[in-house]
């Protein structure tokens, strides 16, 4: 699955994209964040405050309890601030 990061999250991770194969037990957005946070300190730090994160699966906004299976693009970013 392709992960894409924007804004503060992108800067915190030092990358805008990475390809991740989640283990089978990781089924939801929230579980994916937990798993990523366990893999590296930079992910742990970037995802520490979940209230400041928003998610999109294949470019549709989803809640943390959304199932990730079947999605090819998983975006993690801060609340939006356009306009």
């Amino acid at each position: 699955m392709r992960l894409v990061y924007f804004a503060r999250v992108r800067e915190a991770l030092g990358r805008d994209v990475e390809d991740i194969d989640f283990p089978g037990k990781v089924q939801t957005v929230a579980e994916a964040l937990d798993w990523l946070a366990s893999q590296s300190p930079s992910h742990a730090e970037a995802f520490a405050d979940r209230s400041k994160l928003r998610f999109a699966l294949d470019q549709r906004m989803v809640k943390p309890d959304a199932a990730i299976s079947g999605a090819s693009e998983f975006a993690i970013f801060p609340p939006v601030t356009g306009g």
Partner: protein
Amino acid sequence: MIRVSIQTEAFDIAAEAAMLERLGVGAVATFTGIVRADDGVTAIELEHYPGMTEASLSAICEEALQRWGLAGCTIIHRVGRMEVGEPIVLVLAAAAHRAATLEACAYLIDRLKTDAPFWKKEYRGADAVWVEAKASDTQRATRWD
């Protein structure tokens, strides 16, 4: 007619308004957002999520079209770096009567601020900070739910 554009260059309000005026409508309203020099801000930089941004803005336009029976609706949003005084975003709505167009413009800009994947960084000289989402924007958007 729906028109959405994400671009680095400035927009031409006269050309955008003329496009809508040709639809045989009686009313066209516009709203332009501009970089303000609040608290020492000297410039901003806008990042977005290519693909999702266009889809999100098109969905907002589609909703406005249905809701107010608009003949046309346009959103132009710039990305990249913009100095104080430069325009950031332009929304337009065209319809037979005036109330629909002004309300639709309020809707378009309110929704855009909470739903479209843009992120704003403020520069104060060399210092840069990401802008936090405003509770007042989220609050304002709920009035359309």
